[in-house]
């Protein structure tokens, strides 16, 4: 069923709870050393986390915030285990952006029910791409449509990998997946750093991504994404192709063809308030711009320079 991580050094010491969860088909991950189990959560995230409030050195808060701020893990359900005293004093939910809480005296039946509910809720809202864990098309549509109705100028940018098909043909799908994951990590980290909560990234599918940032950040973000991509892509190519500077392959007719090495293209559509009313219009501006940027050699970005005609 699900992998459940327990970081509850003062509770769940009896084997009963663990046994009950395992009897329900869950896998329980636990480690007596709190620092080590938290590190494990990042290296190999579970499907659900139960964490005790008030860990040493505020590690509980640090980890919850880090997970919830991680664009790829924001949907991971976190249940906070609290004492009666916490409930009496009250909790500052901005420091604890968790999904639910469990009282330390809760019965095993209640704990199991809360776990099932949290997992069910996640399944209901998630349209995330299984490979990158990024939001998929219905979330993209919703988020961008929502943004068009706001007052701040934003940029919507479409990212895709050039010559991805020849890459896949040459190295196989699993290495192709690595490149897609690499691009998603770069986007997540650069956008997180420059735009924080004001940014959004979605995975349209395959090698196509879309992101949104405040308009004034767009060029810096694009620049840095391309710099990082260019620094990393050689690690995903074989020495031989790097030296040749292109992929050489034979097509179905037996003709030898060469393709340029994998690069990245970004088409940026500035969205001033009132210019676009529907997501579809943004997408069609992007489509024609994308053709232009993809025609350029290597990794590039282009910003749509047509003046918005605001009446």
């Amino acid at each position, binding site marked *: 069923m699900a992998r459940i991580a327990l970081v509850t050094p003062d509770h769940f010491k009896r084997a009963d709870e663990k046994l009950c969860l395992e009897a329900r088909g869950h896998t329980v991950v636990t480690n007596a050393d709190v*620092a080590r189990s938290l*590190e494990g959560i*990042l290296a190999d995230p579970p499907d659900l986390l139960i964490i005790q409030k008030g860990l040493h050195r505020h590690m509980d808060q*640090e980890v919850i915030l880090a997970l919830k701020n991680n664009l790829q893990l924001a949907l991971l359900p976190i249940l906070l285990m609290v004492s009666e005293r916490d409930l009496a004093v009250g909790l500052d939910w901005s420091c604890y952006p968790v999904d639910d809480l469990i009282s330390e005296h809760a019965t095993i039946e209640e704990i199991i029910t809360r776990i099932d509910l949290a997992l069910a809720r996640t399944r209901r809202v998630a349209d995330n791409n299984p490979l990158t864990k990024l939001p998929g098309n219905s979330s993209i549509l919703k988020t961008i449509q929502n943004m068009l109705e706001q007052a701040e100028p934003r940029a919507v940018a479409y990212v895709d990998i050039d010559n991805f098909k020849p890459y896949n043909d040459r190295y196989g799908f699993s290495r192709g*997946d690595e490149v897609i994951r*690499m691009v998603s990590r*770069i986007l997540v*980290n650069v956008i*997180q750093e420059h735009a924080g909560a004001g940014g959004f990234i979605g995975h349209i599918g395959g090698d196509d991504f879309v992101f949104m940032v405040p308009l004034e950040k767009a060029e810096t973000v694009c620049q840095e994404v391309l710099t990082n991509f260019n*620094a990393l892509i050689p690690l995903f190519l074989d020495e031989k192709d790097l030296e040749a500077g292109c992929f050489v392959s034979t097509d179905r007719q037996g003709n030898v063809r060469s393709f340029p090495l994998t690069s990245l293209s970004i088409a940026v559509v500035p969205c001033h308030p009132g210019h676009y009313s529907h997501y579809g219009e943004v997408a069609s501006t992007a489509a024609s711009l994308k053709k232009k940027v993809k025609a350029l050699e290597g990794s590039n970005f282009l910003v749509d320079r047509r003046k918005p005609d605001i009446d």
Partner: protein
Amino acid sequence: MKREEIRQRLKDVQSLPTLPPIVSKLNQMVSDEDVTAVKLGRIIEKDQVLTSKLLKMVNSSFFGFPQRISTVSNAIVLLGFNVIKTLIVTSSIFEVMQASDIGLFEHSLGCATAAGLVAKKLGIKNPEEVSTAGLIHDLGKIVLRAEMPEEYDQVAETARQAKQYMREVEKEILGIGHGEIGGILARQWNLPERLVFPIEYHHRPEASPDFAEVSAIIHFSDILIRALGFGFGGDPWVPPLDHQAWARIKLGKSQMRQLLEELDEKLMELQDFTLDIQKDGKDSS
């Protein structure tokens, strides 16, 4: 028998402790609003334990770049600030820091610096990767120190009394040397082979199944940095240089002179850094 037992115990090693002053310095940095992942990286890449943790994470199945990432700067681009911050706040420290811990820290840092300079002299494409191999070449010693402290003390004591090299005593007592221990762990953590082999073969570089040039550079840098007396590599003597490995590198006299001058300058800078770290350590204790 002992050897198999150690292999089994290595399977459970998920993370290693590091020096308290480094961790407290990084913890101070993460609470500063202007700090960036790149700034944290500049400290992380000076510590062999944190560097190997970072590489373990980025090469893990969740991040999905198995055996592909071999440098701190590339790992940082892929992991991002939040992950690095969490790695720092959850990192464990040696409860009691010994003088030899600082010595090994300095030795590793010196070896990384020397290896990076040699790689540049030889025109190797990615000198940062060679430098990383130099930094973490003694990972096996940290494993012994942290996970098998009794065995570690026994080895150190026997080596001192019998006036033998540590790695020889390790083989006699444990049936396995620190090079191999480090190699097993690095492989278990999915690090790229271009790092695994130099760790495993830094005392016998010509046995390295691949990346023999990098293994030779690490072997040479390890010896050079001991000869210069920077840090403490675990033995009071400088081990002999492998002739075949040297033939593989073969720096000319003028290249060698240049290398020593550059290294001298870099080691002075490092000395400032390691003194700072030790001072911070005393302040916070």
